[in-house]
């Protein structure tokens, strides 16, 4: 498929997404799409640091939470939403810089566990100092409409995907991939691995903070500790893995299936069964198909075309 055809396909799809709320009034469908878009944002943001750069940090929820919490309180205090979201995302980014330096000194397994523990610490702190759920004030409850939430999540999702797309085609993208593949070789070729990891981390966490901001706007009631729950990290991670690490379409397809599965399965089975399915897929991907769904599709397409000769 050549690029202009692809571009028009994407454009048409986006147009449909924009038009949906005009024709569809059912809240459950709007919620479903909104959630999918939030997950696309969240998973793509993790994709930058985990998929492209190969640093599988498990502390992603912390940045989602910081973005969500700050956005929520600042917005409810009267600051206009865009400014509130920007503040939230910036706060997440600043926190990333602070912990980035010590975190990236840890190697391999220790980095992964260390980031998870950092996020858990934040969660426990907020669970303790802000135990009660934060509910929208009654004047807002009355005027609550899903439609602006929908469009906000769409804008942020498009923004995020565009940024990831830009990275994947840029010098930064190549640098991140080289770090993922072989840090020592990358250093030997002139890549400042520390700096690049930090840059990827900052972009990743900023976008995660934005995702949190969208959620803060969307949620009628939010318990602060829940905003930092590890499940936000894990959902993003398994979406990226199963969809395809370091690809553009991977997290998008992964998110669509994830949220779809979640909605469908929750109708008939106790909550959480979508995690069961995705968990099994995750294990299969890790053991047998590291490229995820997208990688599998690529492989099938290549074998169909007869494969390039050596």
């Amino acid at each position, binding site marked *: 498929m050549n690029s202009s055809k692809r571009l028009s396909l994407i454009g048409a799809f986006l147009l449909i997404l924009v038009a949906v709320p005009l024709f569809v009034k059912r809240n459950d469908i709007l919620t479903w799409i909104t959630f999918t878009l939030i997950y696309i944002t969240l998973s793509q943001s993790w994709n930058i640091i985990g998929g492209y750069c190969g640093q599988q940090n498990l502390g992603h929820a912390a940045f989602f939470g910081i973005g969500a919490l700050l956005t929520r309180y600042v917005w409810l205090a009267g600051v206009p939403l865009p400014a509130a979201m920007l503040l939230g995302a910036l706060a997440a980014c600043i926190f990333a810089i602070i912990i980035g330096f010590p975190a990236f000194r840890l190697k391999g397994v220790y980095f992964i566990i260390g980031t998870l523990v950092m996020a858990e610490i934040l969660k426990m702190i907020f669970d303790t100092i802000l135990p009660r759920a934060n509910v929208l004030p009654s004047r807002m409850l009355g005027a609550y409409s899903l439609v602006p939430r929908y469009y906000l999540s769409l804008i942020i999702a498009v923004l995020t995907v565009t940024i990831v797309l830009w990275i994947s085609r840029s010098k930064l993208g*190549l640098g991140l*991939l080289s770090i993922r*593949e072989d840090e020592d*070789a990358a250093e030997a070729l*002139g890549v400042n691995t520390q700096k690049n990891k930090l840059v990827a981390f900052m972009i990743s966490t900023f976008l995660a903070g934005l995702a949190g901001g969208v959620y803060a706007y969307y949620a009628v009631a939010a318990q602060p500790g829940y905003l930092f729950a590890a499940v936000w990290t894990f959902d993003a991670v398994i979406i990226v893995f199963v969809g395809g690490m370091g690809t553009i379409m991977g997290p998008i397809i992964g998110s669509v299936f994830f949220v779809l599965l979640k909605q469908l399965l929750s109708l008939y089975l106790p909550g959480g069964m979508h995690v069961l399915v995705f968990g099994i897929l995750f294990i299969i991907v890790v053991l047998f198909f590291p490229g995820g769904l997208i990688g599998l599709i690529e492989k099938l397409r290549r074998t169909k075309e007869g494969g*390039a000769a050596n």
Partner: protein
Amino acid sequence: MILEVKSLKKAFGGIIAVNDLDMMIAEGEIIGLIGPNGSGKTTTFSLISGYLTPDNGRILYDGVDITGLKPNRICQLGIARTFQLTKPFTNMTALENLMVGRLYGGGASSMKKAAEECEEILDYVGLGGKGRLMANRLGVVDRKRLEIARALATKPKILLLDEMMSGLTPAEMDATLELVKEIHRSGITLIVVEHVIRAILQVSNRLFVLNYGKKIAEGDPTEVISDSKVVEAYLGN
């Protein structure tokens, strides 16, 4: 002197890998660095390229002290290295492998320019047309070429080649030797670590011999090879 190594020392735990090493290398030379296994050759490369920090001693590049600088900085300054066991970026294409070097080490101004220049380098080393292949689909010989090409992409003034001949057939060795001579003709100073003595004798104008981290001989290749100390070192190990 394009490269001066003064009293270089590096120990790991109780083992001294490089012991009080001095080397003076003029621009345009092809230096052979030989010695039995474990004599400190690769460690010396790692020290020069910044991958390891010396315990003692200094490294001067074009008169500038580069001791303790990080590997990426040293690469940008003009010293590139290959690895004994090739380290390709396996899930990236051959072209992308080179582009990393060109963009980050060689100071390319844009992705497009980098791609063009790297295609040329691929042709230069004999990988022409293979730019779109994933690095993990390249055979042994091509991987070695890729390793060299990547280092070349960083526009080095000094190139450290670590055992390029291992695992090659005599015909492949000759082809690689030709490439090395080509690279040298283009003005790059080379330091070559090798086990295949006949290859080293063919290209280098000067030889350094290491044993247990110490320099035991230095000078004209044919003379050094027949030096009794050198023969003993190889036989003894």
